[in-house]
């Protein structure tokens, strides 16, 4: 039971951590100053969320592992984030589309998680939700601006959406841990989240004058620890300092 809860929290924490790590790559490279600030601020919110979740996961596990131990001293196969989080940043359209898909998911997911019987997760969800709402508003607006923009921006966003869409069914693929957690009044109903997410995506794509691409294949495996070829490089960069100087602080 507590190991199911640990896994459940780790998945949420890893999604926030890996998404935040990727987004932080934009810091100092944004297309213009305001957007540079937006990307860095969003990354900061995600990493803050990851800290809360991984700290709590460590408590639940009860083996004395801290948020840092979990972030820096697990190997690739022990990470449980969705594959979409670890994909390279790509161009601004790719980052925007990924953020939009993830923000919409997070918004509906954490809105439901506020009602969890686990009071700590409910508190983290309530805190996170306010930020998710702000992120979603931002990424939705960029979807419309790029999609309904120039031929160039529209072509890039169309390509990004087509590349990313196959990674989204992983958001809603419930497994045993999700079921156990839902039975205990902790986990959220992924079918409900899927319906809300699909409606939001359809609405914004319509406003962005983009067609929703048909799904010809899907990609997944992150939640089982089976990652893409990109994950090792991401972890190498994220973990190298702590692996070289374990316990280093500043």
């Amino acid at each position, binding site marked *: 039971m507590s190991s199911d809860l640990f896994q459940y929290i780790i998945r949420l924490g890893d999604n926030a951590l890996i998404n935040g790590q990727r987004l932080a790559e934009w810091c100092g490279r944004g297309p213009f100053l*305001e957007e540079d600030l937006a990307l860095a601020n969003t990354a900061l919110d995600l990493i803050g969320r990851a800290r809360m979740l991984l700290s709590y996961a460590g*408590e639940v596990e009860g083996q004395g592992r801290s948020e840092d131990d979990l972030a820096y001293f697990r190997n690739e196969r022990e990470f449980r984030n969705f594959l979409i989080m670890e994909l390279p940043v790509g161009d601004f359209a790719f980052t925007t589309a990924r953020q939009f898909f993830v923000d919409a998911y997070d918004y509906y997911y954490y809105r439901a998680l506020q009602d969890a019987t686990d009071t700590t997760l409910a508190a983290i969800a309530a805190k*996170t939700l*306010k930020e998710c709402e702000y992120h979603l*508003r931002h990424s939705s607006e960029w979807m419309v601006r790029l999609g309904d923009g120039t031929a160039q921006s529209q072509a890039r966003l169309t390509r990004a959406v087509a590349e990313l869409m196959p990674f989204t069914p992983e958001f809603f693929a419930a497994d045993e841990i999700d079921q156990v957690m839902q039975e205990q009044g902790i986990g959220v109903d992924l079918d409900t989240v899927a319906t809300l997410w699909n409606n939001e995506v359809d609405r914004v794509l319509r406003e962005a004058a983009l067609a929703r691409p048909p799904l010809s294949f899907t990609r997944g495996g992150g939640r089982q620890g089976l990652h893409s070829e990109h994950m090792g490089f991401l972890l190498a960069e994220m973990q190298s300092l702590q692996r070289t100087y374990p316990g280093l602080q500043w």
Partner: protein
Amino acid sequence: MASKPAAALLATDMRAKQVSSPPPYTATGGLSAGSGIRQARRILEQVADPEIPVLTIADLGILRALRWRHDRLQVIITPTYSGCPAMQTIADDIRAALNRNGYTRVEVITQLAPPWTTDWLSAAGRKKLLQYGIVPPAGSTSKQSLRVPVTGLACPRCQSANTEEISRFGSTPCKALYRCNACLEPFDYFKCL
């Protein structure tokens, strides 16, 4: 499972940095427990936010409670934004201010629930923000959505309401950037959260 109290969250790296300083002070600052708390609160009401130094942590509403646990003074704070880098500095400043005043055993605990809201900004804090050139949050969070852009803010320099948002994210997580179309100066807006 009965989960752990939210108070335990995020506290790992902020907990109980006990500074052993020499006598003459006792842990309670030489006062009875009740007045020790009142004195500690007065000390903490002077601790400034590291990023908006005109505001104290009391103005911001992040100082939630003070209590004794045996000989330790527990200070309960709540974070503004999840990833706000100022929180670590604030926890350090709280410990330092109390240590300086004779409270040797101090524990700073971060509490998430209920989540911080800009509704907790004090009236004095709002006035100080405006004088500092940052427009305080407009209205109450219960009445407006974060997804609707805030319009018609009065410019802190010329009071014109002809202003517009130029960046939803500012120099710190709590601010957005606006511009006055009358005097053409940019200004910060403390977002409603």
